[in-house]
């Protein structure tokens, strides 16, 4: 099996960040981690050439980079390409992913890579590559190399890697099943009920399980806060919260505010029709109703600030970080409960 290896300037021995503008070059044979891969691949395949490109240059000249790297790779007529491993290096992961995209589309051959699960290259390019999950730094090379080699050997044997040995690609493949879906589902259910092993046909994404807080005993004494991912901000969006993939959240005073109006408030959110939120932002952040409830004695008080970000396309990791800071602040103000409104 003929293999071409794609690596960045660092693993290519060219240099660190100061050499990240290094343009694509080919070296015959192995460079850097390719030495370890080649040793482990003995008898199965051989890295015939290594393409090296600086991470900055690749990402700043994406189209040219993809075309140039593809041209250099295709000259060697490989059966497979190894890109990386990139661990948690973001731009390197994005470059490996882009190489995987162009190689799999244009040459129709598999691309094997290794990345840390939070590398942005995983999210963007996972359907184009067979990505082995690695640790977050190059210190994990000694585990990454055998994992990548094991996957290459699967391809060399003319097989497809087993699910679970790579980061899920989000690719659905049609096949003819012997039994119809309802029968298969009931069979699985019966196995589950009788505690026998079964394999799901549609794995669910992993969500955080958050343990619920203790219930509020007496609402009429509770201090309630409003937090929203619906993007409600003072008119003019003073913190410039982005309409998508928000990089921040805002904290705004409710002092003297009893009603949100088209003159005073609006939404920064770009993921839904903002007309009705802009006409009356209470529809997303119900300040008017909560003021009424305070007056009626249903709740003790309304917290003097509200917190807002835009949920549209915002990374879970960012949302978590904002939530941690907001929760700290709420603790400091001795808030008893929070109403979270989305869109």
């Amino acid at each position, binding site marked *: 099996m003929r293999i071409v290896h794609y690596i960045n300037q660092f693993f290519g*021995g060219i240099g660190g960040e100061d050499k990240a503008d290094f343009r694509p070059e080919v070296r015959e044979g192995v460079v*850097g*981690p390719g*030495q370890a891969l080649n040793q482990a691949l003995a008898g199965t395949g051989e890295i015939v050439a290594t393409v090296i490109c600086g991470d900055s240059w690749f990402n700043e000249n994406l189209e040219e980079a993809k075309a140039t790297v593809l041209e250099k790779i295709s000259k060697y007529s490989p059966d497979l390409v190894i890109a990386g491993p990139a661990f948690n290096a973001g731009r390197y992961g994005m470059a490996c992913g882009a190489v995987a995209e162009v190689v799999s589309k244009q040459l129709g051959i598999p691309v094997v890579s290794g990345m840390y699960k939070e590398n942005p290259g995983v999210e963007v390019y996972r359907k184009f590559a067979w990505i082995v999950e690695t640790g977050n730094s190059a*210190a994990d*090379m000694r585990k990454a190399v055998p994992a990548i080699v094991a996957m290459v050997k699967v391809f060399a044997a003319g097989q497809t890697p087993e699910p679970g040995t790579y980061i899920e690609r989000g690719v659905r493949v049609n096949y003819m099943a012997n039994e119809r879906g309802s029968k298969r589902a009931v069979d699985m259910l019966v196995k589950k009920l009788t505690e026998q092993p079964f394999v799901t046909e549609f794995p669910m994404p992993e969500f955080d399980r958050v343990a619920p807080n203790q219930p509020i005993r007496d609402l009429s004494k509770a201090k309630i806060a409003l937090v929203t991912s619906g993007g409600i901000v003072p008119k003019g969006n003073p913190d410039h919260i982005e309409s998508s993939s928000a990089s921040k959240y805002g904290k705004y005073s409710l002092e003297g505010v009893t009603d949100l109006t088209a003159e005073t408030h609006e939404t920064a959110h770009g993921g839904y029709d903002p007309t009705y939120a802009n006409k009356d932002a209470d529809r997303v952040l119900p300040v008017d109703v909560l003021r009424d409830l305070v007056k009626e004695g249903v709740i003790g008080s309304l917290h003097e600030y509200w917190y807002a970000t835009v949920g549209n396309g915002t990374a879970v990791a960012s949302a978590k970080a904002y939530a941690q800071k907001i929760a700290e602040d709420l603790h400091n103000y001795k808030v008893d409960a929070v109403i979270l409104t989305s869109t």
Partner: protein
Amino acid sequence: MDMENQRRVKEYAEKFGKEQVVCILGGAEAEASGLAAETVSNGDPAWAGPLAGVQLGLKAFHIFEDDIKNQVDPAVYEAQVSLMEMVLDVDAITKEVSTIRNQYANW
């Protein structure tokens, strides 16, 4: 270990002979110190620098290890090292470095 240091270690090992060179490490935690010890003995574990695939087999000691510490002028050690010795996890660091040394060092 960065590329420049790898290059220097390799150069000195060639110039003075592997059996004549010992590396003294000052890493602040166990994993980094162990990786440096591995780099100069078994080769760069990240396979990126000049020592990728080069097994020099050099002995590496951490400055905290008694074999080295006892050879340093106590006044100098006191002035330069002892403060860090108080705040770092000395046991973990010395255990990691000596484990790697016993596994890979030849000289």
